[in-house]
Structures are given as C-alpha cells and as structure tokens.
C-alpha cells in the first residue's frame, strides 16, 4: 500500500464503520439523535467526501445535494479538463483579446495571482503548459525533449496574466499561457462547500477533497475538533503528527502523489515555475490555515520554496502553521515545523495503536 492509499484509508475506515451504508427515508434517526453521516462524490479528478451530523436522512440528503451541487458547479467553472468550462474559455481566448468574466471567477483569479506575487512565483497557475510538457496532464509523467521544455518554459509566468478590475477582464500578454487550477481549485471548492453548509445550518462537519485538502467545520460533539493524521511518507504504519481541526483547513502536497522515475531520479508533479523543473528533495508539506483556498495554494507554494523562504511567506497569514518533510529519501528525511498546532511523532506513532484506540 502506498502512502496516498494509506492516507485515504486512514480517513475513511472509521467513518465507514460509524455510518449506515444506506439511509432510509424515515423522518428522523433512531432515538431522535443527530447522527454522523457521510457521502462521497467524484469531481475535479478526485473524490470529495463530506461528513456531517444531521437530524434525519432527509436533511442529510439535502445537505449532500447542496455540497455536491456546489462542487459540480465549480468543476464546470474551473476545470481545465472540460472544454466548456469558464477557465477553458479564458485559456482559449485571453491570448488574443481581453476576456470578460464574472465577479466570482475574476476574484478567484485575483486571489491566485496574489499568491504568485507573495510567493515570488513559487505558486503560479500558469504552469499548465509545463504540466503538459512533463506529461502530467491526463498522464503519469514523462521527461520532455529539450525543445518541448523550452517552449513550455516560454509559455508560463503569472506576470503575463493581466487582470483589469474595472472592466473585469483577463488577458494574457503572451500566447500559450494556460491556467491550471490544480494547486488551488479543490481548496476553493472545499471553502465554498464549508460556507454553504454553515449557511444551511450544519454545525459540525468535515469536507475532504481527496485527502489533500480537508476542512473541519465546528467539531464532533464532545470533542475539540476533527482528528486528522499527517502521514510519514514511506512508513505505512506511522503518522508524522495528529492534529484537531476546528474551523480550520489543512492541505498536504507530496511528491508521492504523481511521479515517475528515470535513471534513479524521481520527478514529481509539482513544478517549480521559476526553473521549469519538478521540485526536488521535498517529500511533503502540510499547511493549516482558516481558509481552504489559502491552505491549498500555500502548501504548494511552500513545497516549492522550502522552509526558509516558506516561513517568510506564511508570516503574512495569521493563524497558520506548517510542516515540511525535506529530503529525497523517505527514510532519511528531515522534519521542520512552523507554528504547528500538533505534536510531532519523532519515532512515529503506530497506526495500529491508533486504530485500536479509535475502535474501542
């Protein structure tokens, strides 16, 4: 089992046990108690799972419809895999003339460019052509030829995206620019779903976008927050840290999600936009912030920047903590933390013990 798979199970197994597999259409749960329920939905190339406490199967179904309806709406708006999305329309046309877009998409792009500015380009939505060159768009990666890489490097750069707030337009100053929502779209979707569920009256829930971005809305009854384990890559049965999320988001970026090996070198899917190459010698970063959009973008940015410059970036975000797992080898990696709210398991906590404790 690889780490990503393990991480997935870590989140899902206890809840599979805790919830009924099929909910009937009765008016309330037995004993009229609020019950933890979950449902999953495929979108944005991943699986979104929402957990929440509801009074009845009917209200739970309605909350899930709200959540997954919003995720589908955002997928249809921001996907670069769908030719009909608003982002694809911008990618097709903004190299030729300014493209008017709606306030939501415009604000989303402003936020994205803000992360680029603050991170000196370590986070950059324009990495789309690089992702294609390195074979990570609809693929598992490959080494690009020199000309292809040169072309791709010539078609990136957030500075080439001009946002005109007065006219609400997007324009690319060079051709070939391609906005890729990969480092921010899922986080934004989680943030929006949390907002909508809160507005709909949900007081306790967790939104999990493929385990890479997770938001804890309130806390399960009688607890301080939603328990989330940060894995130690390469060590299937160990967690690096355990944290409790309460009205907080957590995002993890890792070199083990999508990668290929060539001549002993591992090339991961997270690009350093400044060099045009996959980031090396970083295994994993995790960020906790109040906003899921922030945590998604920042976990990518600090993965590229590393701990020294990453800490300076995070300094401008209040209530934020981070973890870096630095190194090429999972068995000889170095852990660096910054305002991290959980304990670090230096020797690794046995997951089996965790399971036993949870199931008791």
């Amino acid at each position, binding site marked *: 089992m690889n780490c990503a798979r393990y991480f997935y199970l870590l989140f899902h197994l206890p809840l599979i046990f805790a919830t009924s597999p099929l909910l009937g*259409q009765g008016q309330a749960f037995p004993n009229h108690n609020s019950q933890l329920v979950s449902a999953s939905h495929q979108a944005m190339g991943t699986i979104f799972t929402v957990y929440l406490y509801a009074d009845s199967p009917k209200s739970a*179904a309605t909350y899930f*419809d709200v959540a997954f309806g919003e995720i589908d709406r955002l997928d249809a708006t921001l996907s670069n895999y769908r*030719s009909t999305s608003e982002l694809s329309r911008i990618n097709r046309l903004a190299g030729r003339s300014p493209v008017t877009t709606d306030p939501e998409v415009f604000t989303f792009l402003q936020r994205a460019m803000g992360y680029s500015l603050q991170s000196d380009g370590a986070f950059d939505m324009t990495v789309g052509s690089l992702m294609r060159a390195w074979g990570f768009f609809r693929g598992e990666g490959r080494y690009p030829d020199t000309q292809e890489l040169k072309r791709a490097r010539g078609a990136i750069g957030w500075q080439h995206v001009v946002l005109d707030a007065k006219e609400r337009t997007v324009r690319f100053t060079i051709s070939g620019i391609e906005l890729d929502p990969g480092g921010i779209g899922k986080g934004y979707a989680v943030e929006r779903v949390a907002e909508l569920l809160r507005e*709909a009256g949900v007081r306790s829930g967790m939104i999990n976008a493929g385990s890479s971005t997770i938001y804890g809305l309130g806390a399960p009854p009688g607890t301080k927050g939603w328990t989330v384990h940060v894995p130690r890559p390469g060590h299937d049965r160990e967690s690096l840290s355990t944290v409790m999320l309460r009205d907080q988001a957590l995002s993890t970026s890792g070199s083990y999600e999508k990668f290929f090996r060539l001549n002993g070198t591992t090339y991961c899917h997270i690009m350093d936009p400044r060099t045009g190459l996959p980031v090396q010698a970083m295994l994993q970063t995790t960020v906790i912030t109040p906003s899921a959009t922030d945590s998604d973008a920042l976990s990518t940015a600090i993965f590229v920047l590393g701990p020294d410059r990453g800490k300076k970036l995070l300094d401008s975000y209040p209530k934020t903590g981070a973890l870096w797992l630095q190194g090429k080898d999972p068995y000889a990696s170095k852990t660096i933390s910054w305002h991290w709210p959980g304990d670090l398991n230096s020797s690794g906590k046995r997951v089996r013990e965790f399971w036993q404790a949870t199931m008791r």
Partner: protein
Amino acid sequence: MMNRREFLGATAGTLAASALSPAMAASDRVNLGVIGPGSRGQGVMRTFLRVPGVRFTALCDVYEPRFAEARKITGEQTPVYKDFRQMLDRKDIDAIMVATPLSFHEEHVIAALESGRHVYGEKDMAKTVAACDRVYQSVKKTGKLYQLGTQYHYAPWFMQALERIRAGKLGDITHIYAYWHRNNDWRRPVPDPHDQALERLINWRMYRQYSGGLLAELGTHQILFATEVFGSIPESAIGTGGIDYWKDGRETCDNVQVTYRFPGGKTMFFSSITTNRFVGMQIQVFGTGGSIILTEGGGTAYYELASQNSAVPQKLVVERGITTTASFRAEMPYRGPGEPLKIPDDQQGSPDFLACQSFIDCIRNNRRPGADELLGWNSGVTVALGNQAVDTGQKIVFAEHAKLPV
C-alpha cells in the same frame, strides 16, 4: 401557503408600455434586471456577467435572503425590489431575465415585454397551453425579443447533431428516446423546515400550484430538441407517473414517462426518474442510417452497418453449396466506438454561456433569438399536454387543445 399575491409583492402598479429601445451598438452596455434570482437565476446571472458590457441594474425577489446572494454575484450594491412592477418602472433596464417559478412566467414575461423590455425567460415558456398562447401573442404584439432559457439549444454538439440530422446523414429519424434520470430527492434546503410557506417558496418544484414537475423542469430540453428534429409539435401523448418513492409531502411526480406521437408516426419517449442516475441526461436519436447519442457534455454518432444487395452467380451458391461455420458475424451486435462530434475551437463554449451571449448579441444587433417564441410555444404546449396525459391517464390529442395563435 404562499399565494399569488404574496409572491408578487404587496404593491400593485399600472403597467405602461414604454417606447421600444433604439438599436444598440455592439459595444454598448446592456443593463439587465432579474425577476427571481434563486438557485437557477443566480447561475444564469453569473453567466451573463461573462458577456462583455453586461450589468445587472436591478434585482427583484419576494424572498429577501436572495438579495445578498445575488449582490454577491454582481459584486455591487445592485438596487433590489420586492415588487416587480416597481422594478419595471426603472429607466435603466434594457432586458429582463425571468427565473421565477413556472406558474409566474406568464405574468412576469408579459409585464416585462409590455414595459418595452426584451426577455430572457427561463424555461418553460408558461405552465398551461392558454398561458403559452398569451406569452406568444405578447411577443408578437410588442415586437420585443423573447429567448427561451434553454441552454442546450445552443450547445455546439446539439447544433451539430441537428445539422447532421437535417442533412440526412442519419437517414429517416423515426424515434427519439430521452432521459433525465437522477438519484436524489430533487429538493433544496429550507432554513426552517417547519415553515410551510418557506418550504413551498424554496421547493416550489414539488408543488403543482407552481410547477410542471420533472417533465417541465427537466424534460423541456429534450422535448424542444424533438420538436426541432420532427419539425412540429406532437399529434398525441400518453403518459404515466406518480409519487412512488419520495413520499415526503410533494405533489409533483417523482417519476414520469411520456410517449409522444409526431406526424408520420415519429415517436419520442421521455423518462425522468429520481431513484437511479445510470443513464443521466441523454437523448438517443434513432434513424434508418444511424444514431446519435447526446449528453450534457457531448455527442457521439453511430452509423448503421451498410446492407447492400448484389447479384450472385448461381454456380457459386447453388452448384458449389455453402460451408457451415461456428458463428455468423453479421449477427454480432457490435456497433463500433462511434464518432464523437468534434467541435471546432471557435465554436467551443458552455451551453449556458453561448445562450446568454447569443441573447445579448440579438439585442445589440436586432437579431431574432434561435430559441424564440415559436420554439418556446412548441415545447411549452408539448410539456403542458404531456402533463395532462400523465394526470388523466388518457391519450391527449393535441389538435383538440393546442393551436398556434395568429
């Protein structure tokens, strides 16, 4: 229970038809007002704001929380109204988007047209045949533009399918099977589930007073397409349906099946269920030369295997005989991978965006919308009479109920 007066707001006003708007330049700003910025209305608002030069200058709803939601979409403190008549008194509105419950379409669309505004009217045109007649007549009388808010009419793959069908590439189209299958209760959350008035306002699709149910809210897209393929409204309809699974107080069916017979024996079958989404949204067009499958995201054409006659020399068969074998290839049902409908780059776009862009383009260039009042009337009466077939269990003959007004 929400009544009509409550929905419309307390203040009544006199409607006065204002002067028609002069022609606009392509770059001119187009100001829109919206009546009913609820769930669907907000989605269409977002899309309109992607068209250059569009601005919402007024919002109208009877449910106050919609104002903040809609203002979040416009990004400004757009003026708000609880009475649509007061909104129509404004001088800075070029066109109105109507996205209210179906039973109010007639009144809101006609009032907007008679105030001198063009109308983007969410589907369906109106709830009854008589109401569709009146909307159609109002469009003709005022000379304003009316576009039915049915985005799939503008989907590039729907348009390409129609082109292929009209060019005869699928032979003679004899049947259309269409589905909109979902696996949920089709409800929207109500902040206070015990407030029945609020329940009826937010989940109006569940109540017969306001809604035409699944056939109107989902089937209109496919029914409109069938009337375009067959070039007319049906001759008759039979239907069935019921509240068989979601017994939660709703009044509209949780599943419906309607079969329409068009002139020449052409047939359309439509089904909508809420307990399984395996087929999702689909239109299957069957012709003597091939088929096209259309979905929300694209289309694929399949062509029938050629069946040709040829003269066979007698000695090859009669004198030599034939050889038996274990399988007979011609019986294999394999239809091949199909040919995806490819959309050129310059025609790409989401159906919603293309529909909104086209409406604004029509206003600026005094051009008639593609999904105009005629297509609106065609699909509107087909839905209304389909629902009548479901309700009565009787075969409904269209000639006895619907005639295009002159």
